[in-house]
């Protein structure tokens, strides 16, 4: 393992549709996929550019924004819960459904636990009061139940459908 903890060094990441983005090793470390690149013996920080064919510049910068904000707010005072909440809300507000899904893909590809957890919660919050139809469409899932089978499960868990609007 090549470990050279020089503070000034940055890691170069190349998204599929834009210029190279430099990130600090601290941020890169949280992306498991990048981390395995770095740990590879042939990796030379100053010259190697890591190509990310599955991630766009927009997605990469969103993920870096999130990590930057959250790693800074952890280091500073404890009294930041409210502003963190605001940041998270703003962060999600800028994302339409499709963008949110793509960002989740990117976070999954880069394997960034903190962002993944956050986005999974965001999707869960988004779908929790939605109809089954909406959820299928959102996830691109095809209904493979027969009408009887679906009706049967609905009957068994009828209470879960109480007070929920269907569309």
């Amino acid at each position: 393992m090549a470990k050279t903890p020089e503070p000034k060094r940055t890691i170069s990441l190349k998204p599929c549709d834009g210029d190279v983005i430099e990130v600090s090793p601290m941020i890169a470390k949280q992306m498991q996929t990048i981390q395995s690149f770095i740990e590879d013996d042939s990796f030379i920080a100053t010259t190697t550019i890591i190509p990310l064919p599955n991630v766009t510049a927009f997605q990469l910068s969103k993920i870096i924004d999130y990590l930057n904000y959250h790693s800074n707010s952890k280091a500073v005072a404890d009294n930041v819960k409210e502003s963190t909440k605001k940041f998270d809300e703003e962060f999600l507000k800028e994302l339409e459904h499709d963008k949110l899904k793509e960002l989740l893909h990117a976070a999954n590809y880069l394997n960034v636990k903190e962002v993944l957890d956050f986005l999974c919660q965001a999707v869960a919050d988004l779908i929790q009061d939605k109809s089954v139809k909406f959820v299928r469409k959102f996830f691109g899932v095809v209904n493979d139940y027969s009408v009887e089978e679906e009706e049967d499960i609905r009957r068994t868990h009828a209470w879960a459908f109480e007070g929920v609007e269907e569309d």
Partner: protein
Amino acid sequence: MDTQGDGIFAEEVVIQILARLPVKSLFRSKTVCKLWYMLSLDNYFIQLFNELSRKNPMILVEISDSLHSTSSLICVDNLRGVSEFSLDFLNDRVKVRASCNGLLCCSSIPDKGVFYVCNPATRKFRLLPKSRERPVTRFYPDGEATLVGLACDSTFQKFNVVLAGCHRTFGHRPDGSFICLVFDSELNKWRKFISFQDDHFTHMNKNQVIFVNNALHWLTVSSTYILVLDLSCDVWRKKPLPYDLIYGMGNRIYLLDFDGCLSIIQISEAWMNIWVLKDYWMDEWCIVDKVSLRCIRGMVPGIFPISQTSEYVFLATHKQVLVYHRKSQVWKEMYTVKHSSTLPLWFSAHAYRSTLLSCI
């Protein structure tokens, strides 16, 4: 990337999303497709769901209405606010006696000696068989067990219910024997053992039973030790309290859970101190927080800590439920009872979180 009928996300991502849904939404999502139905029954998924639920502490509070002599339950959820909470699926009038990892132990009000263990999130319940002892022998003083405890481990799908108290034979005075009945969900049987001890409990002591390390824990009136029932060998033990804990002189102490560890909260006039038992076997207590009570000064004599995690402390007063956020040091009022209730809210308030643990 797989974009066929199975959807746009990898299975692991779907699992992570489903594990963050409220239980009701999760049950609806079973009808999305067969794969999702299977995922929701998977052991790995259930463990993940139960683990994540730790981050979302709630408390259950019984609201009694003296005018109409009725009572109802509410659930105070740190994320989603206050909602009504129903145990109607039990088809009985019940009282919540103990709560552990998402399961509740309830006793029937009309039928003495009838106990249920239920998971209100999934609406599954189990009626416990009557213990054969009950008709001939009595718990002291009024036929009710003094202590009711519920122990369920999220890794093993099983639970124990404990009923314990001073005991007397019909027509006799109590003889100092402390009888303990333990229900085992796997055997569907009660077992019984008797010891000789003389412990007394306040109402709060009885409510605050904590399950850690396969043992149930209670504080006693004397507040000089923690009474431990080790369920692996049916033995009562005593555990020392923090060395530098001051009890008496206007200091009150309570026993709570702290992210799976035993914890003592001491409330004095100006401070709330939180101890955590870092090393269970070495009896090593650490003080993890010292909270000033200045902001809620007028309420201090009437506040009772009900539940906590490393982030939050829930407290109940006569008419209010408060939550204290430890990091930002902010107090928030979560609920205020509107009509004049007969019983204070802390009188029957239990820690709760919603899990998929099975009680069948």
